[in-house]
């Protein structure tokens, strides 16, 4: 627990000291404006709730990659990783603590788009199914955190980490149906959407905003949970392997 708390607090001070952390908070309102304008100008102002949800996911993804995925690699570049491994507190718990700040960042991101959309853009939006909405939101934050943990390990192992960071965003937004429901995607892409937990999440969040009944909520919620657990399992499997390999090959720090 010590390591977790230390890592959590360290990451919070990073949020305060690195201006990059502001990026999602600044771009989310802008995206909300873009999406809202398009929908209203196109005569579907009733769908403006969609315009608020999509930027939330975009912020979440940004945090997952840049405040989560790159955590281990940046420790290697900074040269701090060797000190971290040599410290009494567990390396893994510190990393998990750092990445878990995503839960907080994601919640703030959501709060921001909600306040901006509702009170600045005066979007008419009501949460018709509060329990489903809350459950989806919480599970989504958790799933994004475990996915980020998995990415942190992946970025150490894979040489395509940089390309992935720059290129995965919009493909994931598409497959996650964060703005436009996946039903509007071509048939051959549908199977791929199933393993992107965002698609289950966005379906539920959008559904909670509409007056009609939600169908299959329990199933969708358990899919998010399942994908969260899978990401966690993969992360755990990789983490100890990476650590052992790094200590024996001497490649902990990057020159």
């Amino acid at each position: 627990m010590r390591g977790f708390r230390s890592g959590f607090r360290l990451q919070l001070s990073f949020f305060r000291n690195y201006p990059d952390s502001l990026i999602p908070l600044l771009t989310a309102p802008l995206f909300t404006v873009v999406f809202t304008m398009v929908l209203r100008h196109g005569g579907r102002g009733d769908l403006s709730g969609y315009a608020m949800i999509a930027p939330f996911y975009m912020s979440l993804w940004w945090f997952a990659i840049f405040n989560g995925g790159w955590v281990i690699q940046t420790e290697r570049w900074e040269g701090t990783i060797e000190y971290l491994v040599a410290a009494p507190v567990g390396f893994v718990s510190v990393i998990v603590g750092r990445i878990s700040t995503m839960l907080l960042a994601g919640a703030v991101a959501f709060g921001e788009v909600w306040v901006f959309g509702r009170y600045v853009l005066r979007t008419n939006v009501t949460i018709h199914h509060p329990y489903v909405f809350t459950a989806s939101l919480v599970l989504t934050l958790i799933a994004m955190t475990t996915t980020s943990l998995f990415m942190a390990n992946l970025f150490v192992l894979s040489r395509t980490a940089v390309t992935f960071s720059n290129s995965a965003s919009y493909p994931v937004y598409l497959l996650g149906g964060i703005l436009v429901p996946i039903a509007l995607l071509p048939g051959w892409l549908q199977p791929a959407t199933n393993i992107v937990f965002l698609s289950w999440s966005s379906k539920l969040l959008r559904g909670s905003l509409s007056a009609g009944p939600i169908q299959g909520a329990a199933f969708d919620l358990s899919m998010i949970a399942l994908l969260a657990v899978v990401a966690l399992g993969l992360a755990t499997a990789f983490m100890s392997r990476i650590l052992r390999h790094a200590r024996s090959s001497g490649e902990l720090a990057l020159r």
Partner: protein
Amino acid sequence: MSPRPQAVTVIDLVRTFQPRKQPAVQALDGVRLDVDEGEVHGLLGPNGAGKTTLVKILTTVLLPTSGRAEILGHDVVHDAKAVRPLIGIVFGGERGLYTRLTARQNLEYWASLYRLPGAQIKARAAALLERVGLAEKADVKVETFSRGMKQRLHLARGLVAGAKVLFLDEPTTGMDPIAAREFRTLISEIRAEGATILLATHDMVEAEVLCDRVTLIDHGRILATESPRSLGRLVSRFQRVDVEGADRELLDRVAALPGVESIVESDDGHRINVDGDEHVPVVLKVIVEAGVVDVRTSRPSLEEVYVGLIGDRGLEV
């Protein structure tokens, strides 16, 4: 045989590196070393000798290929968890600190990683910053620090948990002479407080001034382990008397004294090689009575030992 474990024990340690698409590198080749508790032990060798590799293995950051090492009785490979709370690490250099955080933030974070109780963290960090002379810059971002300031912060970090064994790897590299001297004073203070210190360096003066014993290492092999003074004996068993302004007549008289092995001309005078400490006082008496006051005795310096044993590599690394 002492029942208490040595501070550091290294037995037949081997470490091979296998970089991609390149031949294997033997960084350590059967190293044996013992460091007593409370000792300041120098690890002296050129770049690439294996000093850093050895320090990394001892600090549980790197695994050896074969062999064993123990810190205060705990195996660094199988019992790393027990080793880590006992050691402090100062690798130094430009990296290893979070540059956009302040010195204080860095130190408090590392203090928390060493399981210092919450209430103590702030006080300990403040005290250490004061001690290494960074109190005024405590709340300044590390990215603006000079090399010397960063080194001092590294040292503060190494001391944060009151380590019993402190590992220093080239701690004064890049420091100006005054800063380096202050740093060494700090080390002496820490030593006086009872810590064991392993100091890897290629700075001869540092090794000579600070260390109780020095181990010479090159190409992954230990060449010798002695006190700095005794090391001189490896190069020459002679005590030397350097004299300036002695005339031919005096020199002839000295040459005839018992124990005087030879007299050699040096840059600014003559060097008299005396075999055996017991003969030196007589030689000195003769010289001084003749009115010559420019006299100095010495043993071969660590630098001469180094160059003699390891060889003059010039700029080759």
